[in-house]
């Protein structure tokens, strides 16, 4: 089974702090994604990566950056956390073309971040 793990289930940070959210997948997937989930807004894509050191902005990249130094690990960075970044953050990965589950995104359990 594909497993996507996220470093923390709950995180509380203060305004202005630099925050790192880590995501690891164990299935050698090339594509990885970071979303934030807010009530009434669904899942919104922050950034995605299609290979090591490659990244693309999603729909709401402002205030975030990402890092992908190894294929299995995709990090989301909040350079200076603000209260409006309080949210649930979800990481996902999906396998390369040609595999049977190519279209499927596999999600981690999420990190609920509170910025005070």
């Amino acid at each position, binding site marked *: 089974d594909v497993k996507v793990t996220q470093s923390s289930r709950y995180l509380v940070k203060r305004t202005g702090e630099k925050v790192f959210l880590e995501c690891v997948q164990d299935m050698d997937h090339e594509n990885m994604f970071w979303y934030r989930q807010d009530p009434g*807004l*669904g*899942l919104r894509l922050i950034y995605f990566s299609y290979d090591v050191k490659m990244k693309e902005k999603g729909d709401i990249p402002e205030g975030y950056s990402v890092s992908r130094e190894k294929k299995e690990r995709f990090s989301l960075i909040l350079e200076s956390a603000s209260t409006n970044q309080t949210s649930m953050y*979800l990481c*996902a990965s999906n396998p390369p073309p040609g595999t049977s589950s*190519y*279209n499927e*995104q*596999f999600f981690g359990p*999420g990190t609920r971040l509170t910025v005070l």
Partner: protein
Amino acid sequence: QQQVKQSPQSLIVQKGGISIINCAYENTAFDYFPWYQQFPGKGPALLIAIRPDVSEKKEGRFTISFNKSAKQFSLHIMDSQPGDSATYFCAASINTGFQKLVFGTGTRLLVSP
């Protein structure tokens, strides 16, 4: 700009009833339409998906109906069970190498015993 509109926001259905969730999209280039199911404390998981070359896909009690001309698709849960209580997201994507999904806003389903 919401490219995939989902309704209702919440839904209460009696056990054994039919749950229906609707989605509408704008971008005619979308060619893959999945539904994801999310239980509390878990990440979303793929439930069922359809491509626009068919009008219906059924997997057990779950059916997607697709209307290409109306740019709408819906999830039907037959014989709804309390264990189906979850949040459901529709999504759409263009079949590129990135599988970049655009999600609807979600529907919280509660199936009462």
